[in-house]
Structure formats: structure tokens, C-alpha cells
């Protein structure tokens, strides 16, 4: 018995509509676990030998939707969305919380591999053993809230008929995309519920490129059995005690940070990162809480922390906006980074961004990039069909988002390619180098934590050396300490629950659920590294449109080397020499050569012969 696993994966080719069942061997699962790790392995098996030729938005790419053995057992259920990323051209394990993975596992499936491209818009319905590809033409082009409402309703009605013998069954859970994903906007997210997004990676665009609007699942079975049930039950309770003691994160979520990260640590993006300090109490957590939160504790399956909050605007110009929290990232990216310091406006933009199907971080970054180009006179009113952008101009920024989501006009279409790709194109068209204003690392717009004050958790090489680029959830400091994130994304559960420490419960959970003898030490020295090396190989091979040159591109955005112009850390900047020194140390520790390419000896020792061979294509003879 494979504890914690349903034991099979759905393999769906949308081009010919063929649905097959895939079993993964136990030795592969033990090495790669699930989610991000297993995803990287499956991608390399199928695409590694021609990685740089695969267009992430072509039918050849795969969309992987994977749970892990701890999904549903360790608090805070998530699902990992991965594939070849249209942002980095590498592999990003992008996770999102909600009940979809529970319904999938209760249907008897650990995950779904989607390949090909449907001729017309479709959605996939998984109901236990019954798997169908159904038309989504009636919801294509619709906003996410409308699409989710329509699909949930029609599928629920069908399920009630199908399972009439049982009485009424609960609604199906869904992952879905909005117009941005349909139009292959590279910052499009795969979403669950409301504003829950697998944002990094651009997998909403991959779904759109496959004409896949949504996947819905409804399982009537139990979660797969575990190896040691009594121990798992005890661990659930043990972790629960830990979680319930974390009052601050439970009470506020990350919502206090919109004020604090600006005012205290001075590492919050302000006006496209031109500053990282503000002291605007108008976006304090209390303003969201007192005026807009209709649920102060909102969570996903099995979570005892419930850092989510439910926000609704009931009066004023933004009446009708609904979103979760917003969490810190969206507070920052749809607030100060756009020169907006009004809680209601931030909720409105968060609600809108979600409706359009953007990642709030990546999409928010692009909105600010465009606004700075307007500030500098590089983009003009004429370029933007009369739109007058400006910091704090909520209506203009909302219109900009709508136009980008639909690629509606020359420059909106260019901006839909993401900050880095748009910067290359605009530099070419305008004859001005705009790359200094593009805040990304290897095509991935950077999360809302700066490095200049050095007061946040993000330091010199955190983004520069991460195989997930600007992703603030997967940063690195050294070759061993950051392996917990890779583990969480592979066993697939929420990382927020680890804040404040998990007292080693993670690996105890894995052993009790799977019955394997994997230790933290083995993970940090071997298993985790395998996953990082595959992701690194993918990132370096890249293509077909852009390629990264290590070690040059293992760096921070240029803006992170400008001195902070304001606040208590005025004049501070990221130390370039320190970055270079730490980078060399990191390469050495993780087993990459001086050019940042994984060493043959290291790869062979880990049994990654295929990856080693594929990397020969970029090694100098």
C-alpha cells in the first residue's frame, strides 16, 4: 500500500480527447513525493530531451495538477500547478489552497496531466472514476466569478441527479481561469474559490493555450488510507495545538503587513519600487478589519490557522467588490506599488484582478511598470488609446488591467507578455532602455519583499539564486536551510502553517502517512537537491523565446541596487559584492560549477543521468 496516495494519475490528451490512467512506481514517488518534485520529474521524462524547443504556450507543453501524500492530512490543503512556465521558461511549482485537491483525492486520483489542445473551449469533470471533457463555450470570455458560479451550479445539479440515491451531495470544487488566461496573458493565474491563486509561473496562460477553462472535481470516497492511522491522528492534533497558539497570524492573516512592511522594515514596493517606505496608516490592517472584513477567520480544508479573511465593500465607490483578505502581497502590489493607499480601492482592484484572472503579484507588477513608463513619458496617452495613467489613479489602472487581460490594443498586447518581455519590446520600439524599471528575476515578477533595507526575510541572493526567480515563496539563503519550501510544495500543503516553526512535524507526518523512512537529513542532502537540479536545468535550457545566461542573470533587478530614496533606511542598497560572494558560495554548496550549471559529478551521484546529458547542450566543450 502507498500510504497517502490514491495510487493513480489521470493522463488527458485534449487534442484527441483520450483519457488514460497512469501509475507511478513507488521508487519514483519516494524520490520525488508529489507536487513540485514529481511534476519536475514527469516534465523531464516527457520534455527534457527537447526542453528548449518546447513553446510553453503550445499544445506540446504539459499542465500538471498534482497533490502530494500529505495533502488533506497536514493542515491547509493545497494543490500544485506546474508545467513549463511561460514566464521563466523553466519549471515553477505554483501552489494554491482550497478544496479541489480533496475532491480529486476522494475521487481516487493523485493528480492530472493535461497535454495537447482542445479544438474548442472545454472543462474537465472528474467524479470518482467518471472523467469527462465537456464544452465550456458558454463560459469562455466570462469573468471568473460568473464562470465559477455557472459551472458550480450546472455540475452540482448534474451530480445531484447522478447521485440521487445518496440524497444531496456537496458541490464540486474547481480550479479555473479568467479572460487573462484565455488570452494567454503570461501573468495569468489558475484560481480556486475567490482570489485564491496559483499566481507564479503563468499557468493560467498554459490552461488558456489548451482551451481549458476549468477542472471540476467531486469525490465521494475517503482520502486514501495512510500507513499509520493512529499516529497520523495524533500528529493532526499535535500540529493543531501549535497552530491554535499562533494568535497573531490567525487574527490578522498577513493583512497587518501592508502598513508594517512599509513603515517598519521599509521593504514594501512603492510606485514600482522607486521607494520601499511609506507611513500610510490608511492601509493598516485595522482599516480592512473594521470596515470590510465580513469574516475575520476564513480558511481552506483542514486549516486551523485560517489566515484568510473575507472582505466585502458595502458602500461607496467600490461597492460590490469581494475578495479574500487581501493578503499582504496583494495589499502591496495593488496598493502602494500603484501609489494607492486606500483600503477600499485595494479590495476593489483585488476583486477586479481576480475577475480578470490575473496573478495579483505578477499582474500588479506589470500595472506599476506601465505606470512608471507613463510617469517618465516613455509610454504616452496616444500609445494607450487615450488612457492617462498616474500613481493613485484607480480608474485608469483598472482600465489598464481590463485592456491587458483582453490584449486589446498594441501596447496592451505587449504588456500582456509580462514585465520582462514587454520591457525588451518597448525598449526596441521606443529606442530607450526600459529594463532598469522592470522588477523581475528571470522573467518572474518579484514578490513584494525588497532586499535593500535588509530588514525583511529577503536578502542578497534570495531571488537571484532561486530556481523560481522572483517567487517570494521559494527564496534561497543557502543550499540546505531552504529545503523546507521544496518539501512543502512536493508533499503539497500550505507553507503559512510553518511560520514560527513546525518542530519537525513535517517529516514525522511524511513517515506516518507514507510509511517511508525519509528523514529531514535525507531530504536536505539528497531528495530536495534532485528537484532543485531538475528545475535549474529547465531554467538554464529555457527557450524558445528567451534564455537566461548564468551567472549574469542570477541577479537582482537593477532597481534593487539603487539606494533607497526615503525612510529610515534612506541610502541603503543591496550590496553587489556580497551578492557575488554569496552566489559563489551557493553554487559551490549546491553543486553547480562557476557558470552556475549543475556539475556532472553531482548529477550522476544523484542518478540524474538524463539531466546531465541534456545539460551538455549548454556546457562549453
Amino acid at each position, binding site marked *: 500500500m502507498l500510504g497517502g496516495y490514491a495510487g493513480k494519475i489521470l493522463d488527458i490528451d485534449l487534442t484527441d480527447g483520450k483519457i488514460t490512467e497512469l501509475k507511478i512506481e513507488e521508487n519514483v514517488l519516494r524520490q520525488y513525493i508529489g507536487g513540485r518534485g514529481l511534476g519536475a520529474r514527469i516534465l523531464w521524462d516527457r520534455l527534457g530531451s527537447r526542453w528548449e524547443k518546447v513553446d510553453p504556450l503550445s499544445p506540446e507543453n504539459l499542465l500538471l495538477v498534482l497533490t502530494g501524500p500529505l495533502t488533506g492530512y497536514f493542515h491547509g490543503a493545497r494543490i500544485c500547478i506546474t508545467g513549463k512556465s511561460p514566464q521563466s521558461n523553466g519549471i515553477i511549482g505554483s501552489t494554491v489552497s482550497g478544496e479541489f485537491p480533496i475532491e480529486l483525492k476522494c475521487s481516487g486520483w493523485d493528480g492530472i496531466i493535461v497535454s495537447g489542445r482542445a479544438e474548442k473551449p472545454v472543462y474537465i469533470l472528474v467524479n470518482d472514476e467518471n472523467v469527462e471533457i465537456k464544452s465550456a463555450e458558454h463560459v469562455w470570455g466570462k469573468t471568473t466569478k460568473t464562470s465559477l458560479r455557472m459551472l458550480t451550479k450546472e455540475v452540482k445539479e448534474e451530480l445531484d441527479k447522478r447521485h440521487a440515491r445518496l440524497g444531496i451531495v456537496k458541490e464540486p470544487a474547481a480550479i479555473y481561469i479568467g479572460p487573462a488566461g484565455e488570452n494567454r496573458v503570461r501573468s495569468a493565474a489558475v484560481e480556486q474559490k475567490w482570489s485564491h491563486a496559483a499566481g507564479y509561473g503563468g499557468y493560467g496562460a498554459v490552461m488558456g493555450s489548451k482551451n481549458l477553462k476549468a477542472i471540476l472535481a467531486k469525490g465521494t470516497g475517503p*482520502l486514501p488510507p495512510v500507513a499509520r492511522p493512529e499516529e497520523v491522528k495524533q500528529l493532526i492534533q499535535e500540529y493543531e495545538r501549535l497552530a491554535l497558539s499562533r494568535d497573531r497570524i490567525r487574527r490578522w492573516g498577513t493583512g497587518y503587513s501592508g502598513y508594517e512592511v512599509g513603515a517598519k522594515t521599509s521593504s514594501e514596493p512603492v510606485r514600482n519600487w522607486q521607494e520601499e517606505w511609506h507611513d500610510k496608516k490608511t492601509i493598516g490592517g485595522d482599516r480592512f478589519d473594521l470596515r470590510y472584513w465580513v469574516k475575520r477567520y476564513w480558511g481552506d480544508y483542514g486549516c486551523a490557522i485560517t489566515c484568510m479573511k473575507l472582505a466585502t465593500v458595502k458602500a461607496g465607490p467600490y*461597492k460590490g467588490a469581494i475578495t479574500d483578505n487581501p493578503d499582504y502581497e496583494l495589499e502591496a502590489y495593488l496598493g502602494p506599488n500603484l501609489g494607492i493607499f486606500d483600503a477600499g480601492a485595494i479590495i476593489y482592484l483585488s476583486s477586479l484582478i481576480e475577475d480578470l484572472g490575473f496573478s495579483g503579484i505578477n499582474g500588479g507588477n506589470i500595472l506599476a511598470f506601465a505606470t512608471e513608463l507613463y510617469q517618465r513619458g516613455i509610454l504616452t496617452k496616444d500609445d494607450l488609446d487615450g488612457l492617462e495613467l498616474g500613481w493613485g489613479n484607480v480608474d485608469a489602472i483598472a482600465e489598464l488591467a481590463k485592456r491587458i487581460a483582453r490584449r486589446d490594443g498594441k501596447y496592451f498586447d505587449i504588456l500582456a507578455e509580462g514585465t520582462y518581455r514587454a520591457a525588451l519590446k518597448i525598449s526596441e520600439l521606443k529606442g530607450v532602455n526600459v529594463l532598469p524599471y522592470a522588477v523581475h528575476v528571470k522573467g518572474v515578477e518579484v514578490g513584494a519583499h525588497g532586499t535593500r533595507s535588509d530588514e525583511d526575510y529577503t536578502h542578497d541572493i534570495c531571488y537571484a539564486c532561486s530556481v523560481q526567480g522572483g517567487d517570494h515563496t521559494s527564496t534561497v539563503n543557502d543550499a540546505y536551510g531552504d529545503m523546507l519550501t521544496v518539501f512543502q510544495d512536493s508533499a503539497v500543503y500550505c507553507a503559512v502553517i510553518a511560520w514560527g516553526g513546525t518542530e519537525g512535524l513535517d517529516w514525522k507526518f511524511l513517515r506516518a502517512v507514507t510509511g517511508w523512512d525519509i528523514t529531514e537529513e535525507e531530504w536536505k542532502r539528497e531528495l530536495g537537491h534532485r528537484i532543485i537540479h531538475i528545475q535549474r536545468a529547465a531554467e538554464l535550457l529555457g527557450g524558445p523565446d528567451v534564455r537566461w545566461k548564468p551567472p549574469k542573470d542570477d541577479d537582482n533587478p537593477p532597481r534593487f541596487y539603487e539606494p533607497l530614496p526615503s525612510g529610515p533606511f534612506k541610502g541603503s542598497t543591496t550590496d553587489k559584492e556580497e551578492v557575488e560572494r554569496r552566489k559563489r558560495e551557493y553554487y559551490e554548496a549546491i553543486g553547480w560549477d562557476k557558470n552556475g550549471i549543475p556539475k556532472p559529478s553531482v548529477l550522476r551521484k544523484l542518478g540524474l543521468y538524463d539531466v546531465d546529458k541534456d545539460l551538455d547542450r549548454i556546457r562549453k566543450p
Partner: protein
Amino acid sequence: MSKNSKIWISRDYTRCTGCRRCEIACTLHHEGQIWPEASRVRVFMLVPGVEIPHLCTQCTDYPCVEACPFEALSVNEETSAVIVNSEKCTACGLCIKACPGKIPHIHPKENYVLICDLCGGDPQCAKACTEAGYNCLRVVEEAPSISHNLFARTPEELTKDVAENLFGEKAEELI
């Protein structure tokens, strides 16, 4: 709790976080595993943000018990809970039809109906909820009351009311 008092699980839907730890506690207790559709309390989420824990409310007239032609349902005098005799139950579904809230449901793999039995007087779902401080489900000392009958409503009916409470006018567009 005095010896002769009765318990009831009070429910405050606007406080439901959607964490489903009630479902987990219920099924670990009754089924020995986590099994959302076999839970005696099921959290419906027809609209995200509007989570409705759906469980027996112990109507004073017990229409489900009345409707059972096989004497598979009875009332526990001590707790007031409806007790299912899984040997006698044929999963015919007449109790579901009789319930104004369509709360009972058939076990997905077995041939009997699932109805909250109040865990014999120590409901695990309410414990999980109150431990976390949510108090959506809470054990109260309360004699059986005709007012409890009011809670036997379908998820659709409850969702409509709670959505308006949370979202105001916007609720109409979401259902």
C-alpha cells in the same frame, strides 16, 4: 451540565470559516478516516465565503423517524439524537424526503443513512470548532425546542440568506 439537561449544537453560519475540521473530526470519530461525503456534518459551499455546516437539528416532531417504514430510526431519550440502526436501514431514502432540510444522506459505500448522533453526548465537530475559537458550531445546554425545527433547511435556502447577510445587494449576482 446538570444530569437532566439536554444538549443541542447551535449553529451560527456567518462564523463558519470553511475549515471543515468539523468534517474531519466527525469522520475520524465515526469512520476512522477522513471522508467528507461520509461526514454526519457536511459543509456546503455553493458560493465561496458562504459556508454552511449541514447537520441534524433534532426537530421536536422528528419527521425522519416518522417516515421510516423499517423502524431503523429511533430517538435516544438521553441525548434527543436520531439513532440509525444500520442493520435495519435499507437506504430507501424516505427519511431524506421527509426532512425539510434534506439533511440525512446515504453513506457513499454502505447501505444505510447517515444522521448526526451527537456522538453520544460529546459532539466532536463542535469541539473542533470551539477549540479554534470560531464558535460556529457550539454545544449548548438547551431543552428540545420547536425553534430548533427552523434550522432544518436546505443548503440552497440557507446560502441565499447568509449570502445576503455577508454580501448585501451583491449576493443576488453570486447565487
